[in-house]
């Protein structure tokens, strides 16, 4: 009996080994690749696009998509712990400094040279924002993958109603049109706020207020930039006094709060992308701040899409035209065991034909060959505004300690805008103090 059991065990072991042998080299050769990103509409487009890569190379694509609220936590932890979950990662633009300096990403300069991938072929702002560290130096850690910026949507059908247009013209002496400045944005928002349309009470505009991750910062910067906020002295890096808390920046923060107070639907005190989409789709707001990445999906929405939706770029302010940069670059994780296959994916993804299909499927290509093609502006109703926005983007700090800087800003801005604590000047003064401390801890001169 014992001999029989032993023999059966041996046979089972041999069978297992026989099964395992062909699998092992397949994995070692990188026949599957895990791509990490956020769980949102463009990720679905990327899955669709990835099928072509699998068909061409035989490499199976696996995906690890995490909701935005835990995206940074999840993947920054993964990188910090030198995890091997992700072979390829579409990481947020602000991670580039930390990921480059801590060796999480593979430096791609040699690979780009070898494969003749030129960064000149991409929109300049995306190269600086997603690929370079240190900024404005030819050190590349990512390929621009998903160009994005903050833009606005509006209810074109409401704006077109003759009675509303007449009332607006009588009240403000101009046509009811998508706002071009933040003053106009406030005016139009107030005009709609509290009004009853189709039997429902509606509100002027939806803006980001989320406290936990990056929401309110990604929203408020759109007002701050156009009123004169600068991260630091252009001539003296990390010198923030008088730039972060300049009179213009204070005014920008006050305007953002005014917009929140007058025109945000009730209850949206801790709201980011999804809440904005919900508010817009359910007909609660006339205008919505959100990322361009969502606009293809909104345009297809059966209730508010098509002829009912319009788009506009972030309105200008006294300091000019700016908008918050979003989007991400695609990088190879240096701890990946499938580095060659990962690089193969980057090479494939950089091809103009693939980039064109990426745009067609709902992703946002940063390749000039796609966005500067003759038919691009007419390829989607939001395409002209997207292109215009990409020429006026500004990004948050991309320092290795960007999380500290971001969370400080989240706190100071939310405390002032939503929780009514202190004045705008006090909020920004405290922010300077917080940031000075972060940079000092990092050993960077701030005075």
């Amino acid at each position, binding site marked *: 009996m014992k001999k029989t059991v032993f023999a059966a065990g041996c046979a089972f072991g041999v069978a297992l080994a026989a099964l395992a042998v062909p699998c092992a080299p397949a994995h070692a050769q990188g026949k599957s690749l895990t791509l990490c990103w956020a769980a949102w509409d463009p990720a679905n487009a990327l899955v669709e696009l990835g099928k072509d890569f699998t068909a061409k190379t035989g490499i199976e694509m696996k995906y690890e998509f995490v909701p935005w609220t835990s995206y940074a936590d999840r993947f920054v932890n993964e990188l910090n712990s030198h995890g091997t979950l992700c072979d390829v990662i579409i990481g947020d633009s602000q991670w580039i400094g930390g990921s480059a300096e801590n060796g999480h990403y593979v430096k791609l300069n040699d690979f780009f040279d070898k494969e003749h991938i030129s960064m000149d072929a991409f929109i300049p702002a995306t190269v600086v924002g997603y690929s370079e560290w240190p900024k404005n130096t030819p050190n590349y850690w990512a390929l621009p993958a998903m160009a994005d910026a903050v833009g606005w949507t509006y209810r074109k059908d409401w704006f077109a109603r003759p009675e509303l247009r007449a009332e607006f013209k009588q009240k403000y002496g101009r046509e009811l049109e998508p706002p071009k400045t933040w003053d106009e944005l406030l005016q139009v928002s107030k005009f709609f706020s509290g009004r009853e349309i189709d039997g429902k009470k509606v509100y002027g505009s939806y803006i980001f207020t989320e*406290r936990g991750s990056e929401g309110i910062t990604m929203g408020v910067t759109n007002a701050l930039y156009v009123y004169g906020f600068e991260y630091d002295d252009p001539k003296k890096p990390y010198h923030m006094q008088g730039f972060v808390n300049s009179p213009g920046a204070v005014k920008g923060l006050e305007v953002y709060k005014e917009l929140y107070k007058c025109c945000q639907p009730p209850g949206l005190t801790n709201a980011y992308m999804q809440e904005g989409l919900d508010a817009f789709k359910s007909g609660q707001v006339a205008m919505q701040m959100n990322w361009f990445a969502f606009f293809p999906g909104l345009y297809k929405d059966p209730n508010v899409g098509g002829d009912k939706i319009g788009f506009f770029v972030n309105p200008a302010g006294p300091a000019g035209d700016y908008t918050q940069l979003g989007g991400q670059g695609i990088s190879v994780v240096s701890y990946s065991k499938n580095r060659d296959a990962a690089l193969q994916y980057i090479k494939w993804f950089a091809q103009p034909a693939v980039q064109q299909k990426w745009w067609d499927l709902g992703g946002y290509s940063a390749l000039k060959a796609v966005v500067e093609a003759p038919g691009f502006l007419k390829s989607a109703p939001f395409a002209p505004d997207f292109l215009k926005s990409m020429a006026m983007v500004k990004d948050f700090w991309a320092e290795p300690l960007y999380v500290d800087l971001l969370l400080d800003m989240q706190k100071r801005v939310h405390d*002032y805008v939503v*929780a009514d604590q202190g004045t705008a000047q006090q909020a920004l003064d405290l922010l300077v103090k917080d940031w000075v401390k972060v940079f000092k801890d990092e050993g960077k001169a701030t005075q």
Partner: protein
Amino acid sequence: MSLTADSTRSLADRVAATTPAPMMRRVRGLSDRSLAWLFIAPVMVLLLAINIFPLIWTIRLSFTNYKSNLPNAALRWIGLANYNDILTDDDIWARMQTTAHFVIWTIVLQVLLGFGLAFLINKKFRGHAFWTTAILLPMMLSPAVVGNFWTFLFQPQIGLFNYVVSFFTGIDPHSFQMIGDVRLAPWTIVLVDTWMWTPYVMLICLAGLRSIPEDIYEAAEVDRASAWRQFWTITVPMVLPFLMLAVLFRGIENFKMFDMVNLLTSGGPGSTTELASITLKREAFEKWRTGYSSAFAIILFVTIFGAANVYVKALKRVKQR
């Protein structure tokens, strides 16, 4: 097949007989105390590994500038700087005040309501078992679920809560928001925690009430003590140790409350409901200030450990009376 005393004895004898002589000699050489140590050693090692060592490591880190997202950065010994930063930071004191507000009010409300409910449930009435189960339901839910569904209930446009308030008071349901209002938000988290954990206090009080012997009340009746007097001289003193235990459990639990509040308000609006534990999480796992957050954790630990110790001594005195 049951083992009789004889058969077990013979089994023990057989095992003893088959034990190799060298091992027998070794075991025979061990004292009872040594054997006791031998048996508890694995548990002690485990405790040292998962409790004591991390605690000592945390204390060590609290004197450094360590950031766990920069593992290769130079580790600097900064003495008491982290402790000094924390104890002189106005924001931290504000968070401690928020935590104190939450802990004190939840305990007061839960004790009053829990004891009241236990007192009522302790009476025999029809449907008694059903109501007991119904009251216990909230504490059986996950804090994550509670946080999420109360978020929906408090939604000022579609949430049920505002409509209920409106129904009873006539206030416009859209005119106020529980989570988004700086004045109401701190009370919102108190309300939800009280809803969830009052049944727990009730359960402990019920155990206390049921432990009071009936004959004490019968003797009081014979002495013509009024119901009010029976309540103050029999019920309250005899339930008091149980009540104090409930206060201890809820106090410790709410001092380190995180999940429910984080899901309900994320510490907002602004930082109005940011409890110490939420600040600690942000410092430790979002800003990755490991040294600083270790110092903060130690301060919180000492605070709660000290308070609990004083309280347990008071509890012992009450029990001895």
